[in-house]
């Protein structure tokens, strides 16, 4: 037992590359990689699926797939997390295909907790705005959603995002700019549609 604890302690000091080499034959090494990346994978899948149940199911699949393929992992100089994100991305894409539709995230689950201390009416208003924004994010193409999640949730730099998405730093910066413009346009369009509906409702 002491040996196991000593080994676990040693694994905490190792970098990803060394752990990946060990993980093919040693489950404890894989366990350390799991600890490092569980929350990241969960966040990514959660925001892409919009519910806890599917997020847990797909996160489990990400790590099961990673564990069964770690023996064939080839280090191409990219960070290990890029490989995990790719697995997650493929699983989420399959999930969306199977669903045949895009569910709207139940924003109640993840509205920023900091807002809850504010006045209730202000909080409700903020919640509504966040809901609209999240719906707009989910209407974006997959690569743009991925970029926003990596930038805002993982707070990765453009270079790190580029490594994960297989793009140059400049291409990420450009995609981010275009994503914001598209998002703004979509939100304006939705506002216009909402205003037109309200107007026609009043007239009717």
């Amino acid at each position, binding site marked *: 037992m002491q040996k196991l604890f000593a080994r676990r302690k040693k694994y905490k000091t190792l970098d990803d590359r060394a752990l990946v080499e060990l993980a093919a034959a040693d*489950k404890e090494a894989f*366990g350390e990689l799991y600890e490092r990346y569980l929350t990241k994978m969960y966040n990514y899948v959660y925001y892409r699926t919009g519910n806890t149940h599917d997020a847990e199911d797909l996160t489990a699949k990400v790590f099961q797939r990673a564990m069964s393929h770690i023996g064939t992992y080839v280090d191409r100089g990219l960070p290990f997390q890029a490989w995990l994100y790719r697995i997650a991305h493929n699983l989420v894409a399959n999930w969306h295909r199977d669903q045949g539709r895009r569910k709207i995230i139940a924003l109640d689950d993840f509205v920023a907790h900091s*807002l809850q201390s504010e006045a209730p009416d202000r909080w409700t208003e903020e919640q509504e705005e966040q809901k609209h924004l999240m719906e707009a994010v989910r209407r974006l193409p997959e690569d743009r959603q991925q970029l926003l999640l990596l930038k805002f949730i993982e707070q990765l730099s*453009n270079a790190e995002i580029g490594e994960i998405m297989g793009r140059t730093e400049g291409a990420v910066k450009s995609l981010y*700019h275009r994503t914001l413009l598209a998002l703004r346009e979509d939100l304006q369009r939705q506002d216009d549609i909402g205003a037109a509906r309200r107007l026609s409702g009043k007239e009717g």
Partner: protein
Amino acid sequence: MDSHADAKAQDLVDNITGALQQGNSPDPIVDLSDGAHDEYVDLVSLIQGLRDTLVPVEPSAEFAAHLKTQLLISEAGLVARLRKMPARLHVAAILALFAGFSLLLSRRLFGASTAQDISEEPVATAL
């Protein structure tokens, strides 16, 4: 928009995002946007909205622990552990297995003949 203006706009948006993520005011950066001040004010509020909406979530501790157990103590994990055991343990396991089979076999053979002997004994009848 030409490529130079495009690159400048991308840099501005990137810098505004960086400032907001670090909790700094984006105003000094927006002020550098020359004539397009209003457009960037609009984008600042959108970036703020994204920052406040896309917040990290944590998987439940129960799920995290359950999945880890599932991954590390899978069937494949047990096989791998057995393989990594020292050779003397392998020999001991084989010997124990052999001894177990021998015991079962001997019980069946000798146990059956004993039962047969007993059944063949004449039954004493009460007069």
